């Protein structure tokens, strides 16, 4: 695999012409266009940092106060399999680095507020006034000279709702009684895990299931993509399978999930969002986006689909930070 990667790199270097996708890329990637953006993004570049967990750069962060940085919560939170040790958080800007601590977290927007020790950072210059029009040109910055991602505002600001998690089953007793499966729907999570009609689900993760309603409630508490274990009885045999919950979308959609590539782990449950067409990697989230005025119009919060890059609008970011600081104060947090 590594050999192949090297071979390919050599190959590309040797190629006289760029690849089709690169020779003409959308507005996002042209080098001429990037150059034009340089002076526009200069200010915002001073308000972006890299957030490191145990000295490893994980995600971008936006400076929201002299010693305050907002970043993507799920990207700095250790996963279950990474042990219980409290991770050491720090931020990098250019050659400099400062330690920091997490002082607040908001699960709905998946944002965390960090307080930086000993730094005097340049807070983002927020866009004020009228709402952005769809078609507005936007740049995502990461502290380097020119923007790393360009795109347009795709739609008006809207409320991003949470997609529900689905197991992909039809109950034989929809109105109550044991969780007997009538049918596992085509392309559903249950079917993929081998669950079929006639099976009786008796346990969902830690919870014993005695009634269809209990199972419904348990599924509702999950998010699409959550990994759960399901125990069912088939012909007196008890079988436990592990599966990832799906959504209620069409087979075409789930088929596409696989081609979307890397998406942010937590990408739903946001409130008001700006949707833009910039192609970002999950680790490129957390940083500011600016329009042609050079002012920050929002903070990238997730890559929600093949094309759905979502940002929290600047006024909502400011309101959130104010709320987080107020809560911290009320809780008597002294850092």
């Amino acid at each position, binding site marked *: 695999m590594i050999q192949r990667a090297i071979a390919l790199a050599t190959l590309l270097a040797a190629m006289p012409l760029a690849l089709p996708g690169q020779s003409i890329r959308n507005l996002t990637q042209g080098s001429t*266009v990037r150059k034009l953006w340089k002076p526009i993004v200069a200010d915002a570049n001073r308000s972006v940092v890299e957030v490191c967990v145990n000295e490893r750069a994980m995600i971008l962060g936006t400076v929201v106060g002299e010693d305050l940085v907002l970043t993507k919560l799920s990207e700095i939170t250790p996963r279950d399999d990474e042990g219980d040790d409290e991770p050491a958080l720090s931020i990098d800007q250019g050659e400099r680095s400062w330690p920091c601590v997490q002082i607040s977290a908001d699960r709905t927007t998946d944002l965390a507020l960090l307080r930086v020790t000993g730094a005097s950072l340049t807070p983002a210059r927020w866009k004020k006034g009228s709402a952005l029009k769809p078609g507005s040109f936007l740049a995502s910055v990461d502290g380097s000279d020119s923007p790393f991602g360009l795109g347009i505002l795709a739609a008006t600001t809207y409320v991003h709702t949470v997609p529900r998690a689905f197991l992909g089953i039809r109950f034989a007793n929809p109105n109550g009684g044991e969780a007997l499966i009538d049918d596992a729907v085509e392309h559903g999570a249950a079917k993929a895990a081998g669950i079929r009609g006639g099976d009786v689900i008796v346990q969902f993760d830690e919870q014993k299931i005695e009634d269809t309603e209990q199972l419904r409630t348990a599924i509702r508490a999950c998010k699409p993509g959550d990994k759960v274990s399901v125990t069912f009885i088939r012909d007196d045999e008890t079988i436990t399978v592990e599966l990832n919950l799906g959504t209620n979308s069409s087979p075409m959609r789930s088929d596409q999930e696989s081609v979307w590539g890397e998406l942010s782990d937590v990408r739903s449950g946001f409130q008001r969002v700006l949707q833009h067409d910039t192609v970002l990697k999950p680790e490129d989230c957390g940083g500011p986006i600016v329009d042609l005025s050079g002012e920050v119009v929002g903070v990238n919060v997730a890559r929600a689909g093949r094309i759905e890059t979502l940002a929290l609008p600047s006024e909502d970011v400011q309101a959130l930070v104010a709320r987080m600081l107020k809560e911290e104060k009320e809780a008597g947090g002294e850092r």
Partner: protein
Amino acid sequence: MSRFATAALAALIAAPAAQGQTEPAQTKVSNERLAEIFAGDEPTSIPEIKAMQAHVQSLIQRVLPATVSLPGASGVLVKRDGKPFLLCAAHVTLAADKEIKIRMTSGRDILGTSLGANHRSDVSLVRVDEEGDLPYAEIGKSSDLTRGQWVLMLGHPSGRKKGRTAPARLGRVLRVPESGYLVTDCTMQGGDSGGPLFDMQGRVVGINSRISGNLAMNMHAPVDALMDEWQELLDGKVTESRRRRGRSRIDFGVPLTYGDGCPVFEEVPEGSAAADAGLRSGDRLFEIDGDEISSRRDVMRALRNFKSGDKVEVVIERDGKGLELEVELVEEGDQ
């Protein structure tokens, strides 16, 4: 393929560009220059980017009302012989004489009846059963498109969402085939199917059809395929896609040998279509339309959305050098 008449384009663009913005920065850019950029050039100054932005913003407002959503898909309203129609994709409407529920951007619901569909070109026509004035888009000519030209795509990725207008995506034409699909880097996603691709004058030039794993591979049916068959579609003719014989598949018409790393075209006979496309015996296949290839499954995955007659761009290695070729696909057994 006729090349763009820049002067004519300039005249057409003039109106929306002028009415959209009044800031002095925009007035410095002539409409002729703006037309030149949209015909495939890159902007070279900030006033030019601003002029582009102003045009894109006003264009989105102009084409949004005619862009509609269907359950899980999209479409565009047009007018012909004084009657309203919906242009859509064959894989959305599927068959004739079906009731089609259409939701307009205004939120108003109207009904239509599906007419013909061509599953080979993936275009279909829907009669709109509604009296009174409806918004509509002008129809353009896809044969007038040139590589590098800027285009605007609208649709409802992941289906319609409350409070969200159809997200717009700006991109450029990557490939204009003589037949088959139009490729742009306007990133699409499930739900965009059937939605319109506009030229920068707001004329429909394509219908959203399919995607591949590569973000830059977004395929649209050229609108000419629909217009050329207008009468047949109006009469309700449904053309099936080429039937697949047994397990026959789409490939290059010459054998590929799989081993470690990239597959090899062991034998490319002289006079074969593959040889005409530039393939030679011993060429190693690195990429298909931007997807890296190292196994039989990779090839199958990269080609699964194509039909016989479609062209793909491949990157091959020959004598240590990379080459980019365009190869026509055939159904296995056709040769």
